[in-house]
């Protein structure tokens, strides 16, 4: 241990005080972790939920239609009452493979913390203009939807008056409505694909309700303006999402909002040697949400980007409980190990590995499809044998799918690989 720096020990350290971290910490405490510490870099708990002031949260967990802050507050109250240590305004600078954390804040200063188990719950960040390589100038007035959301909903600032939006992630759709309600003009929302990235209900209640044009198969090929953005060149896109030359059209605007999707934030995970899945951008995890590094668990958007906070809560509860079980040496490390494998039409499956002995009621596999599949089936195979078929009216990459599997089937068949594929009904 390094000299001159205070050392603290906790059974479970949870990194991130958003919905994932809150649920994981509470659950770890409930399941026997004696000391739990949540480390949050912002000045309060709740994470991005605090800026998601719209409703639609909690239908699954609470059977109520809550706003983001309402959903967060329920967990914050529970956390405060359960004797969990909370370090706000605190940054984790590094995690080592032997679960030593370097943390920094203004009141403890720089120090090391030793954890018996760690839960990674850092969430995700937004894809930027540079990540999708939009050429042109670099003026002010180009915002990611989430940054604009924080300015608008928490700080009370307008980011512009005449707005173009590229990308149709949920935050973007919801921001189109919020900006309209606050008096801005949203000129159009562009989707590079032939379908929106966010939930259909958001297309309906955020765009259709306010007559905001949704331009499918369009993208921005150039940003114009020296100091502040003055306009964008919009082009139609072909089947491969590439702009079609000659189709460019100028749209004047003073603001460009980008809603181009989210990327799990795993810089700390990488530092700790956690293995990542290129398909999700998040850690490879097993049924207990444990990563490739023993004692490091992960949950929520740091693992894979969710559409619904309710599922984040579910997943994080499992991670928190598992972390407590790990500390109490109640997680079974051996026994039958099954690998999941995304088959035809499936982009990824979480979890990646299943230790069957740790399953109790049922195994739930979460996945995203690669394209839009109307009226299709999800086919689950244990090695080469079909063990389940599930009919789906409508599947789209914008909406996470899941399927439940009875552990008994796995115990009986003992497959090495569990795969899921999509089959169109007419095939």
């Amino acid at each position, binding site marked *: 241990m390094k000299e001159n720096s205070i050392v603290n020990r906790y059974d479970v350290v949870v990194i991130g005080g958003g919905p994932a971290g809150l649920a994981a910490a509470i659950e770890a405490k409930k399941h026997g972790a004696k000391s739990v510490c949540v480390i949050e870099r912002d000045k309060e708990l709740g994470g991005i939920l605090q800026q998601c002031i719209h409703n639609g949260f909690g239908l699954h967990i609470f059977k109520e239609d809550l706003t983001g802050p309402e959903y967060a507050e329920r967990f914050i109250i529970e956390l405060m009452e359960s004797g969990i240590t909370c370090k706000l305004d605190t940054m984790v600078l590094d995690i080592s493979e032997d679960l030593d954390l370097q943390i920094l804040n203004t009141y403890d200063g720089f120090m090391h913390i030793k954890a018996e188990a760690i839960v990674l719950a850092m969430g995700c960040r937004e894809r930027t203009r540079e990540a999708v390589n939009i050429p042109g100038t670099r003026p002010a007035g180009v915002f990611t939807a989430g940054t604009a959301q924080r300015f608008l909903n928490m700080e009370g600032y307008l980011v512009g008056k005449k707005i173009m939006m590229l990308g149709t992630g949920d935050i973007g759709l919801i921001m189109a409505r919020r900006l309209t309600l*606050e008096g801005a003009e949203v000129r159009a929302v562009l989707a590079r694909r032939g379908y929106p990235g966010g939930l259909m*209900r958001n297309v309906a209640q955020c765009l259709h*309700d306010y007559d905001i044009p949704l331009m499918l198969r369009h993208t921005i090929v150039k940003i114009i303006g020296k100091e502040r953005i003055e306009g964008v060149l919009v082009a139609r896109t072909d089947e491969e999402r590439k702009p079609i030359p000659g189709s460019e059209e100028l749209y004047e605007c003073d603001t460009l909002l980008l809603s181009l999707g989210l990327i799990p934030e795993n810089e700390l995970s990488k530092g700790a040697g956690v293995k990542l899945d290129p398909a999700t951008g998040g850690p490879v995890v097993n049924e207990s949400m444990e990563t490739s590094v023993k004692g490091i668990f992960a949950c929520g958007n740091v693992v894979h980007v969710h*559409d619904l906070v309710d599922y984040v809560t579910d997943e994080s509860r499992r991670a928190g409980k598992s972390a407590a079980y790990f500390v109490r040496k109640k997680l079974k490390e051996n026994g039958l190990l099954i690998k999941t494998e995304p088959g035809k039409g499936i982009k990824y499956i979480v979890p990646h590995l299943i230790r069957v002995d740790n399953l109790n009621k049922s195994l739930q596999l979460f996945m995203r499809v690669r394209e839009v599949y109307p009226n299709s089936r999800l086919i689950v195979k244990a090695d080469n044998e079909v063990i389940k078929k599930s009919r789906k009216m409508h599947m789209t990459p914008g909406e996470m799918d899941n399927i439940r599997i009875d552990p008994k089937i796995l115990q009986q068949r003992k497959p090495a690989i569990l795969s899921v594929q999509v089959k169109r009904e007419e095939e």
Partner: protein
Amino acid sequence: MSSEAKEIICIICPVGCRMTAVRDKNSPSGFLVSENQCKKGEAYGIEELTNPTRVLTTTVKINPGIYNRLPVRINGSIPKNKIFPCMKVINKVEVKAPIKIGSVIIENILNTGCDLIASRSMKAS
């Protein structure tokens, strides 16, 4: 109102059913909603034909809060055409921090029968 079928995307839950709703004298409710996956969807479809309503969430000024704005919501659904009139009223309000979640900020806003309430607690700065 026309008897033409209306394509509706259900906003009740994240499934977002793409439904069709039409007036139908032969059905007991007087309407026929199809391709919905649940009962709530049917009710929503009928409401969209007769009296479309929405939940309004926005912010109000707060002073001296840890942020400049407090998130608020209307604790029920209001007619769609009341959204902007309500916004005009809400934009004029300023509340004092600290405030508790659920506190009523405007009672029976524009006679909708619904209240505007704080959707989080906020400490004073």
